Every structure is written in structure tokens, then in C-alpha cells.
């Protein structure tokens, strides 16, 4: 019975419209990140006085943030799984783990950037670095936004429980989180790995 109720919340007309709208927002975001990747690839070789990608990146630490974000995506999927079972506390728990991992990711990224800046790789040093910070910064900002958004939703989940209002919101937030993860997979491959090849 309880499985039904969350599904019913998600199948409600307004919820279905919200989810569809969110998919079109994802379509728009694909263009946004596509253009940012295009900019990055166009100026990748224009390193001027600054370091080249190969000199700059430290793969081991990037690997760590990648694992952190991938795991957060997994815990997010688990949270939605419990949401479907209408298990309030478990949903809450796994979303909490998700945002903590998200915070860890942001922390790692800030540390990485400060390290680069200390090495003299500033945003204005070269076109490559400008595009790099623009792309990574936009992604990092999305992660931060996701963390804040999901925390607000968790407060609502705590206060109101799983109902017609909270269930679709949490589901959409999970879509957002997975999408950020997809973008990170592409960043990891195109920016970091190929930058090291």
C-alpha cells in the first residue's frame, strides 16, 4: 500500500508537469555545459605564460573528488528508492549523506583551486585557465546550489513527511543531483584525463 502512495504522488498531474518541465530545464543545461565545454576545448592550447593542463592537474586528488561525487549520486538513488517505499527516516538519512558528500566535494574543489592560485594559475593568467575556472566554477556552483536546495527540502521532509508536496520535489532534486554527476563524469574525462594524455 505504501509503495502506491508515493507513486501516486509522483503520478499526480501537477507533479508530472513539474518533472517534465525539469527535463526541459536539463535540456537547457545540456546546452549551457555544451557551450562551456566548447569554449574550453577551443582555448585549451592557449596557455600563454601559465601552466599547461598537463603541468597543472593532480590526478590523484581529482580521482578522490570523482569517487566522492559518484558515491553521492548512488546514495541519492538509494534515497529515492526509500522515498518510493515511503520510508521517511531512511530517505532523510540517505539524502543527508548525499549532501554531506556534496559538501566534501565542494571542499575538495576549493582546496584544489586555492592550490592552483598559489602556484600562480589565476583566472586571468591565460585563456585556458579562464575557460577552466569558468567551466569548473559553473559546475561547482551547481553542486552548491544542489546542496542548499536539498537541505531546504529535507527540512520540509522532516516537518511534513512524505506527501503530495514533498515527494515530487525530492524526486526532482534527485534528478538534478544525478545530472550534476553526469556533467562531472564528462568534466573528469574531457578536462582532467584527456588533459593528462
Amino acid at each position, binding site marked *: 500500500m505504501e509503495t502506491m502512495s508515493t507513486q501516486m504522488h509522483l503520478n499526480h*498531474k501537477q507533479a*508530472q*508537469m513539474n518533472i*517534465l*518541465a525539469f527535463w*526541459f*530545464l536539463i*535540456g*537547457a*543545461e545540456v*546546452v*549551457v555545459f555544451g*557551450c*562551456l565545454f*566548447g*569554449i574550453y576545448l*577551443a*582555448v585549451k592550447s*592557449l596557455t*600563454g605564460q601559465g601552466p599547461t593542463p598537463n603541468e597543472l592537474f593532480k590526478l590523484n586528488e581529482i580521482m578522490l573528488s570523482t569517487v566522492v561525487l559518484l558515491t553521492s549520486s548512488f546514495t541519492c538513488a538509494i534515497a529515492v528508492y526509500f522515498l518510493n517505499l515511503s520510508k521517511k527516516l531512511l530517505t532523510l538519512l540517505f539524502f543527508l549523506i548525499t549532501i554531506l558528500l556534496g559538501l566534501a566535494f565542494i571542499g575538495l574543489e576549493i582546496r584544489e583551486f586555492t592550490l592552483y592560485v598559489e602556484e600562480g594559475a589565476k*583566472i*586571468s593568467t*591565460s*585563456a585556458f585557465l*579562464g*575557460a577552466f*575556472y*569558468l567551466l569548473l566554477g*559553473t559546475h561547482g556552483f551547481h553542486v552548491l546550489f544542489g546542496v542548499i536546495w536539498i537541505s*531546504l*527540502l529535507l527540512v*520540509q521532509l522532516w516537518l511534513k513527511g512524505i506527501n503530495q*508536496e514533498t515527494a515530487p*520535489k525530492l524526486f526532482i532534486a534527485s534528478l538534478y543531483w544525478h545530472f550534476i554527476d553526469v556533467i562531472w563524469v564528462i568534466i573528469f574525462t574531457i578536462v582532467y584525463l584527456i588533459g593528462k594524455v
Partner: protein
Amino acid sequence: MMNVILDYLLSLPSDIIFADISFTIMLIATVYFLTKYAKWKWLWSWITSTDHKKIGIMYLFVSFLFFIRAGIEALLIRMQLAFPNNEFWVFQGERFNQLTSTHGTVMIFLVATPLLIGLMNVIVPLQIGARDVAFPFMNSLSLWLFISGGILINASFVAGGSPNAGWTTYAPLASKEFTPGPGNSYYPIGLQVAGLGTIMGGINFIVTIIKMRAPGMRFMRMPLSTWSMFITSILIVYAFSALAVALLLLTFERLFGTVILSASEGNPLIWQHLFWIFGHPEVYIIALPAFGIFSDVISVFSKRKLFGYPSMVFAIILIGFLGFMVWVHHMFTVGLNTNITIFFALTTMLIAVPTGIKIFNWLFTMRGGRIRFDTPMLYALGFIFTFVIGGVTGVMLGTVPADYQYHDSYFVVAHLHYVIIGATIFGVFSGVYYWWPKMFGKKLNETLGKWNFWTFGIGFHITFFPMHVMGLMGMPRRVFTYPEGDGLGFLNFISTCGAFMMGIGVLFFMINIYITTRYTKKRVLNDPWFSRGRTLEWTIPSPPPAYNFARLPEVKSREPLWDAYERGNKNINFIGEYEDIHLPNSTSLPFFMGIGFLIASFGFVFEIWPVALSGMLIVFLMMSIRSFQQKNGIHLPKEKVRVQDMRGED
């Protein structure tokens, strides 16, 4: 303190003082009249409204104000160019660049696009038989983001200088190195805010059309206006995202010192690519809805079924698709690889095919029809004539070797005004005359409408036709004067006369609105167009009740109302039962979010970070409040709906 302010004011150039004074007078007058007639509450009810019809009307009203402003700029431009070596007022050099830049920016982003979005708001739910749009709150938010972006770009003139790198704001001219000062920061930040609103609007209409059609309203039964607005919404979502990135890039370039667009260390062509990846679909974003409006208008006023409906739909989709693959034709002269250039020249010419299909379908619709020449139809006919000329010059510009001759000359100016005014502005006039009775319950005065059309239309051709010749004679665009010996004086003078004629045309339109609102007593019924209406919006009262449809209509064909007329009925059958109707609450949050964005944007433009941060905090606070709000809405009991509906039918 007073002395400092006075000194500052006196040090300003005369045009800014003039703008300041006229703005202050208008503000005082507005406040005075609102207070005198006790209309503040009424104003607030509009500001907080989530009714799609009211939001649409506000879109139309605000973008009409911007239209007036940018129109006055056009007149100033023409005055400066009226004679060789002219020195009109202060509009030479830098000031002239600001004029042309803001004229273009405002007309494209704050007039053409929102005017059509305004019509979309009013019309789409009515045409698909829906009680509202999918996201009323987001709709209101779109409006207020558009308005705050618009205010920002318009305020630039009196606060720190306008953008002056052309409406395309090419880098590296637009970077801090060459244009310091806040002027060119207004452009990316203001448009970013307005563009965000536009993307939301696009998503809103996509979902509305996919999910909220009345029973039986299949995709292939939707009126052409709705179809074109659907495709436009899709284009908006993808194209404006590309613009968002371009603007973000320029913002970073100006505020945080990146060098991606710099000529020495980066590559300025990135801006051109991104801008035109947005810019060309934008042309179709503002042209397609006009095509849809003309399809409806031509069919109604010819009393004929639209010829070739499926091919019309197919043509719209094809234009939308191809529209994304032609942008490099704006950049032929930058010297890209020949193969790339040829590819884009071919796709450009390919677009002429679906557009040609549409033109022929309109002509065949009229053939054998009983045509009435009312103002909406006059605009539609004027459009066909004008747009064919614009289309032909478009194909000419798409020819690569010839483009090297036309590029950056008045020929381009003539072409773009022929297509944009010919399609969008004619389309909006046509649509506004056509749907005015539906919006306000009164018909606009037909005599003044005809005066409006003929002065505006003839004035248009007098203004812009000579520009083709000027361009071929070698007059470059964006110059503030030309020497006497070039033989351009006569053509330019004619063009200036035409511009003032267009101004008179717009004046007729304003007088028409005033007279109709003030003196016309006659209220129209459901279908004011001589019982020729074909689509769902004419089956309900004018103006419609807040919930549009008391009972949901049943749609069995493409032209439900016309089919009912054919069967001798006065209206279509409404199959739905009366039911409790749920209406969205009014809300002031979007308004305050708009204010938050406005504050933040000023902070960013002048690089005062505390202001920017506090503005963003306001936005974030409003979003949080919204997130925690209970969305109850208003429930209208079915008895009340039934009583209202019965009264309407008498």
C-alpha cells in the same frame, strides 16, 4: 551636499538632463494619477496576479513602452543621418554608438521577443482549451525578470552610460580594455536577467502545450498560432541557454579579468560563434509566432480553411530545426574554412524552401475566399508583400561572395528591418488588433486602425527601401555621418521622412487605444469577427473569466467553432460537467525577486559586491519562502461557476 548634487547635474550632457527631467515628470504624473483615482490597490492586484491573461497584457504593455523608447532612439538616429555632415544635438561619435546599440538591443530583446511572449500568454491557453498555464507562479516570475532586465538596460542611459559596442557587442571591443566604464557591463548582466525569465517562459509553454490540451485537442488539431508558439518555446529553451553562456563569458571578461575573448591571448571569435548560435534561432523565435498569427488571421478573414495545414506544421518544424544550423552566415567575412562557409550558405538557402511553402499556402488560403480587409488582415497582407522582399535579400546575403560586398553595409540594415518589422512588428499589430476584443471586450476603432496601418506600412517602405540602395552605394552601418560628395544625402533624407511617418503610424495606434478605451461603449460577444471565428478562443466570453472555460470543450476537428457554425449551431458543445475550479493564488514573491535581481545587477555592473550580494540574498530568501509555502490556491465552487456561465450566455 546640495551643491555637489547640483554641480553634478549641471555637468551632465543636455540629452541626459532632458531624459532625467522627462523621466521625473512621468514618474510624478503616474504617482499623481494613481493616487488621485485611488488605483494603487488596483495596480498591486495586477502586479501580484498569476492570471495568464493579465500577465500577457502586462508583457504587451511594458514591451510597448520599450518600443516607444527604442522608436524615439530610431528617430534620433534618423535625424542625425538626415543630411550629410549633420551635427544634430549631441548624437555624434560615442553618443551615436550608444544610440544604435541600445536601439538594437532594446528592440530585439525587450520589444520583439516579449511582445510575442505577451501574445503567447494571452492566446495559447485559450486556443488549447486550458484554464491556465502549467506554472502560473513561474509565469509571473518570467514577467518580473524581463521587467527588471529591461529596467537595467534602459537605466544605463542615465546611470553611467549605455552599451556602445553595437547590439551584437562583439569582443574585443566590448571588453574592458577598449570600453571601460559600466556601459558595456549593463548589456551582459541586464540580458542575463531578462534571458533567464525568457527560458522559464519557454519551458512553461512547452509543458502547458504538451500537458494541458483540452480533451480531443490532438497535436495535429492545434491552431497554427499555438503550433508556432510551441516550436518557438523549444527554440527559446535551447537558444537562450547558449546566450546565457555567451553573456556569462562576457561578464567574466569584464568583471573578473579572464582573457578568453582577448585578441592577443584568447580568441574573440568565440563570442561571435556563441552569440550567433543564439542569434540566428532568435530570428525564428520572433518570426515563427508571427507566422502562426498570420495563418490564423488569413484563414479567418478569408473565410476559408487554412490551405495545407500539415505542410504548414511541417514547415514550422523544419524552419525551427534548420534555424540552428545557419548561424555562420553572420560570420562569412571572418575568413573561416571554405567548406564550413559553403555548408552554412547551403543551409541558409535551404530555409527559403519551407518559408516559400508557407507563403504559397497563405496565398492559396486566400484564393477563392470572401476576404474582408479589416486591420488584422491588412497587416497580414502587408506582411506577405514585405517579407518576400526581406526573404529575397536574405538569400542574396546568403551568397558567400556577394556577402563580402553587402557585409556591414546599409543593405544588411535594410534586410534585417524588412524581416523583423515585416514579420514580428506587423505580426504583433495584426495579433493585437485581432485579439484586442478577446482581451478587453471592445473592438479597436477600424478607421483609426486603417490609418495606423497605411501610415506605418508606407512609412516603413519609405524608410527602409532606400537603405538597400544606400548599402549598394557603399554606406557602412553604424556610422554617424557621411560626406556630401557621396551622393547619399537625398536617400537618407527620404529615409528620415519615412521614419517620422512610421512614428505617426504608432501615434495613430496609441490614439486608437485611448479612444477605444475611453469612448467605445459597445461590448463584443464571444466571436466579434462577424461569426468567422474558427478556434477555441472565440467560444468563450470576451474578456474571458479568470478560469477561461467554465466547462471544458470537446474538440473533434481542427476548427471546432467553424464546424459548429457550419452545422448551424451558435457555439461548440461543452461536454465537461461543471466542477470546482482551482485557481492559483496571487503572489508578490516574483515582484520582489525581480527587485532582488535588479539590486544585485546594479551591484554587479558597478562592481560593488555588498550590493550584489544583498540582492542575491533577497532572491534566495524569496525562493526559500516559496519553497516552504503551502500552495492552496483559490477554489471556486461549481455552483458559482455555473451561475456565472449562465449569465454569460444571455
